[in-house]
């Protein structure tokens, strides 16, 4: 997704771009996650700023791609399970409002106007009209196509070619060299490996997530609905399994239930306990789901960096090398803002947002 967005924004900035992937389009984490474009789960700070910019850019792209990428400005509803939880959630929303987020408190009754099938007896929540969603694989494919760039799928980058003074002059692939003065590393969870080919360290690591998919249903869940603990899980630094439920309907009918978070490396083994926990959380929010069938489950590996912020921009250690990876559980949403920042950096223009917090060399001095 991030590579496709970078291709679109850089091509539209007038550059001649080639998009290379060792797999097909959306064959990485983009084809193994969900497509929420969220502000609701982000605390004030650089990631929220990037999310607000990205949400605005997605809105612009939606005018062009709308239905093809299943864009839906559906809004999010975060639900508290206890009065204490509600108070904490409202404090959080207060801070987000100060940072420019639209966050409307919803008292108990109004909650059921927004989502009629929620479990009875919930104290209330917060409504986030800016939350929206796309279908990630379609979004990546359509953005890549619309960029008009040459797309080389099934081609693996095996080395980064450099001039004697260390600047980038191209990439070596298993199907020949490609000469270019600039490379954007949008290799997601494998971004660290690509950086290593250029001789620099970027500590991108995988954080596994499962998603449960139900049989197709008529629209019974209208927003993206999740429990307030989700925000804590997203921001958490823990390696242990976390499974706060996130429930959302899709344009195609199935309901998606996400998303677990755990650090187990690249372990692809299916885990029944994880999907059971997801099902338990989802049926607690929406009791009607108990009779609905899970059709399948899939897993993906979110690319994360130690401070949970992506690496975006030029790498001062290797002239011509740019990074756009490490977006963890928000790479679909943040792809547009990332594409914008990369295009501005490549054309030496001032971006709409200060990119300093995303500096790729910010981990350089840390001990390995």
């Amino acid at each position, binding site marked *: 997704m991030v590579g496709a967005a970078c291709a679109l924004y850089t091509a539209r900035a007038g550059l001649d771009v080639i998009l290379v992937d060792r797999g097909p*389009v*959306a064959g990485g984490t983009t084809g193994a996650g969900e497509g929420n474009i969220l502000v609701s789960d982000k605390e004030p700070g650089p990631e929220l700023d990037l999310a607000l910019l990205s949400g605005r850019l997605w809105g612009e792209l939606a005018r062009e791609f709308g239905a093809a990428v299943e864009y839906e400005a559906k809004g999010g509803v975060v639900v508290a399970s206890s009065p204490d939880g509600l108070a904490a959630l409202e404090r959080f929303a207060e801070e987000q409002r100060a940072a420019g987020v639209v966050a409307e408190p919803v008292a108990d009754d109004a909650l059921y106007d927004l989502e009629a099938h929620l479990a009875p007896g919930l104290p209330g929540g917060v409504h986030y009209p800016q939350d929206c969603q796309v279908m990630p694989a379609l979004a990546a*494919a359509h953005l890549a196509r619309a960029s008009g760039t040459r797309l080389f799928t099934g081609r693996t980058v095996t080395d980064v070619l450099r001039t004697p003074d260390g600047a980038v002059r191209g990439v070596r692939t298993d199907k020949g060299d490609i000469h270019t003065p600039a490379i954007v590393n949008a290799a997601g969870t494998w971004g660290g490996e690509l950086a290593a080919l250029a001789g620099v360290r970027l500590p991108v690591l995988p954080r596994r997530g499962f998603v449960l998919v139900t*049989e197709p249903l008529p629209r019974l869940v209208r927003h993206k609905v999740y429990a307030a603990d989700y925000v804590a899980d997203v921001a958490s630094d823990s390696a242990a399994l976390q499974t706060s439920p996130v429930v959302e309907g899709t344009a*195609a009918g199935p309901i998606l239930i996400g998303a677990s978070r755990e650090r187990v490396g690249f372990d692809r083994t*299916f885990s029944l306990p994880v999907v059971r926990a997801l099902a338990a959380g989802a049926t607690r929010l929406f009791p009607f789901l108990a009779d609905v069938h*899970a*059709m399948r489950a899939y897993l993906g590996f979110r690319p994360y960096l130690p401070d949970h912020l992506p690496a975006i921009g030029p790498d001062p250690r290797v002239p011509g090398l740019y990074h756009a990876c490490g977006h963890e559980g928000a790479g679909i949403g943040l792809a547009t803002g990332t594409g914008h920042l990369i295009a501005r950096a490549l054309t030496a223009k001032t971006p709409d947002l200060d990119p300093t917090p995303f500096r790729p060399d910010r981990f350089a001095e840390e001990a390995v």
Partner: protein
Amino acid sequence: MTDLAVIGAGPAGLAAALAAAARGVRVAIVDSATEAGGQFYRQPASGLRSRRPQALHHQWRTWERLRDGLAGSGARFAVQFLTEHHVWSVERDSDGFTVHALLGPEQRESVAVRADAVLLATGGYERVLPFPGWTLPGVVTAGGAQAMLKGGLVVPGRTAVVAGTGPLLLPVATGLAAAGVEVAALVEAAGPKDLVRHGRALVGKLPEGAGYAARLLRHRVRLLSRHTVVRAHGDDRLTGVTVAALDTRGRVRPGTERYLPCDTLAVGHGMLPHTDLAETLGCRLDGLTVAVDDEQRTDVPGVWAAGESTGIGGAALALAEGHIAGRSIAARLRGSEPDPAQWASAAKARTRLRKSAAALDAAYPPPAHWSDQVTDDTLVCRCEEVTAGAVREAVDELGAGDVRTVKLLTRAGMGWCQGRVCGPAVAGLAGCELTPSRRPFARPVPLGVLARQHDMATEKGTS
């Protein structure tokens, strides 16, 4: 407590259960069907008691021997038959396996069968390749027609065409004819030379091979070899098909099209193994089949596999593999090294039958250019109503390169059947190889079932 859970009550599962039970193993056989028998020994539904079921079955005596053996004579523990148990997952933990199965036709409640060892004998499913009109009522799979026959549901007096490729078409055609259906033609994509060249293998596999040819003649079933169905016709149901000759490279020969009126078309393009449960258990697959060693063991300790899930090869091969698996399991569960000499004759049969299965596979490939006939408006994925045109667009314009990305970009394979029907067609249209897709749930499972299991586990954990 059960020592061995056998999943699938076809020839492989039954032979294994019999061999293991005879050696003191406590066996539970789990199958989704209402009665034991699998694909081959499929039983007429009890309500429709067929007077002479053996007329439809070859090797009826083998079946009787299996059935009577399992009914208890000799074994120390009676084999437990759990029918209408739809296995959705097999879970492995530190002290054995839990087989999770949904009960009955409703499939709302799940039960757990604990066992020390598991045999995967889940058989295969049919490969059907699409063509214009294939979704019309009246078009059925060859296996579906066979099941209707064996279930006593075939209505005589109809006109049928049997088409596709593979040795399974022969018994379907003669079976329909014997049941009083007029079979207008058996349309086989393989050429007569291929059939002759592999004739010995064919006879080896189906001892009745020669008999089938005679029976086709007797029932005046016309064999159109190196032919294919290019279109099925009808408004709201099938009224006829257009068939055409193929050239030696598998392309339709222009000008050879002709129309055959019929109200039933049974199509099949061979079988594919069921590998979902094995995949989720982490067993190594070899292409599209579950990989096993000489004892039918998978690479996951405690998990054996036999029958069509390890490769398509017919009922006799399934019996041989099941027998070997049952003996190996009996020895290993006792903690002793099995002696292969004890199953030497089954092993010999297995070697011979696998060889002829490979020859048959080579003789009956789907026509090389079948996808040329598939028009853009032909539905490929029926569950999600995805057309061939949409699949082609995903590949040609959106950068899809494999079945998984086509699925993501078009939804082909995301529906109720989870791509079991359309997978081969999508791979063919996309020009890529069919790879086993991951299906963590072998059957759709209610979220409430998963949620209750979570709550039970956490209660146990905190008490």
